[in-house]
């Protein structure tokens, strides 16, 4: 089912969104998305009309993100490392605290025009789109992560004279790497997955090796959902061509 059809299936009431919008750091002002007025007469179901629109997401990577000292998406994901400025409070994309609503923040950062008053990295997190918090509270002190659920098998927590490998790094072959949440998953196509995971941040910055790939994948995403985001009266960061 196309996204356009999905959108048409939604009730008018459901479009009555109010997104608690963003100030400089994504908190403060409001974006109010008005609900369409209900029709008083029966009308035929509109027919979806295919519209050939191409998107250029270049701007999405270059626009400053509010509250991040002028940094933009490109500077956060190239190289693909989690960046943490110790002089500022931690909140993704400045580092990543376990409590951060990283999916909602990332979606807003990828999709929205940050120059529009009321739109920012926390626009969707403030709704929220996904669950707002973890099922268990994080601890304020070490080890910070909550205890496991249920009664799983766990190691005894005892022992000595453990038998570790001592082989050099050269005896190991790369399997996986991760810096930022979901970037490799959302912005790297299947054909490049292995080379991306086998690469290093030094490889990332060499002629911005993966920027074209990121842009291409984000262009495709806008091609599928850009119009739907705009229907919510949110301004997208991609340009239509």
């Amino acid at each position: 089912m196309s996204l356009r059809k999905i959108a048409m299936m939604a009730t008018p009431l459901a479009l009555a969104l109010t997104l608690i919008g963003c100030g400089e750091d994504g908190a403060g002002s409001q974006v109010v998305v008005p609900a369409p007025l209900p029709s008083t007469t029966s009308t035929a179901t509109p027919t979806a009309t295919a519209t050939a629109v191409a998107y250029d997401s270049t701007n999405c990577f270059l626009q400053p993100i509010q509250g991040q000292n002028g940094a933009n998406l490109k500077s956060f994901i190239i190289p693909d490392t989690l960046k943490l400025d110790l002089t500022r409070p931690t909140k993704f994309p400045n580092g990543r605290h376990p409590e951060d609503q990283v999916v909602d923040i990332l979606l807003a950062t990828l999709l929205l025009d940050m120059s529009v008053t009321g739109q920012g990295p926390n626009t969707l997190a403030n709704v929220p789109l996904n669950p707002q918090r973890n099922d268990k509270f994080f601890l304020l002190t070490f080890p910070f992560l909550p205890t496991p659920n249920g009664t799983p098998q766990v190691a005894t927590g005892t022992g000595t004279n453990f038998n570790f490998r001592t082989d050099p790094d050269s005896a190991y072959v790369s399997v996986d790497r991760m810096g930022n949440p979901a970037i490799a998953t959302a912005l790297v196509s299947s054909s490049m997955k292995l080379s991306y995971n086998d690469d290093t941040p030094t490889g990332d910055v060499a002629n911005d090796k993966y920027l074209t790939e990121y842009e291409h994948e984000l262009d495709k995403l806008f091609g599928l959902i850009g119009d739907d985001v705009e229907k919510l009266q949110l301004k997208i960061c991609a340009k239509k061509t």
Partner: protein
Amino acid sequence: MRRIFKTLLAGSAGAASLAALMLVPTGVAESADHLDPPSRTDGGVDPNPDIPADIADVFAWHSNGTTKIAMTFAGPVSAAATTPLYYDRDVLYKINISTAAPGNTPEFTIKYRFGPGQNPGEWGVRIEGIPGVTGVIEGPVEQDLQKDGVKVRVGLFDEPFFFDLIGFRETRSTGTLSIRNNRNFFDTQNDTAIVLEIPDANLGAGVTNLGVWGQTARFGGNI
């Protein structure tokens, strides 16, 4: 009012659109990086997935003069697992930390390996390269370990990632809008994690900006 927002959004076109973002084109992340790359770590793609080497998430945060880093991974056992507990001795886990320009090269590479003890259920971890720590930290998992001001623990924890994966999957398979912000797929699930707490002084004088990334590698080649 807030509850009304949630209800409205749960059935909205906006929810569908944004859910679709996560549905295309490369599939849904089980966690922020879990099951990626699929051809090595996803059982739906690889008949022999490398579960212990599958990084799920990397976290890095700072408060009260210390930097906290956590890396979660799929192995060795989940809450529902019935297979014997094990940590994979053949996987080398790395947490890289850049503390100076350029941010793409690490000043510190923390390496950790697992090994069995002398008795059933005994597993140890050996960690080298920790900032400000002389030598290695070695000891049993499921215990707080401490040396030169650094605290380390490896073990099973509540899965810290939260996300409506079910809603994304349902939307993908049925076309019916079903993403919800009151449903966390990861409720009651567990993950293995290494957690470190490192005093600022251990990272070096004047360090204010970090770059952090995780890597896994398997002894002898991919399975």
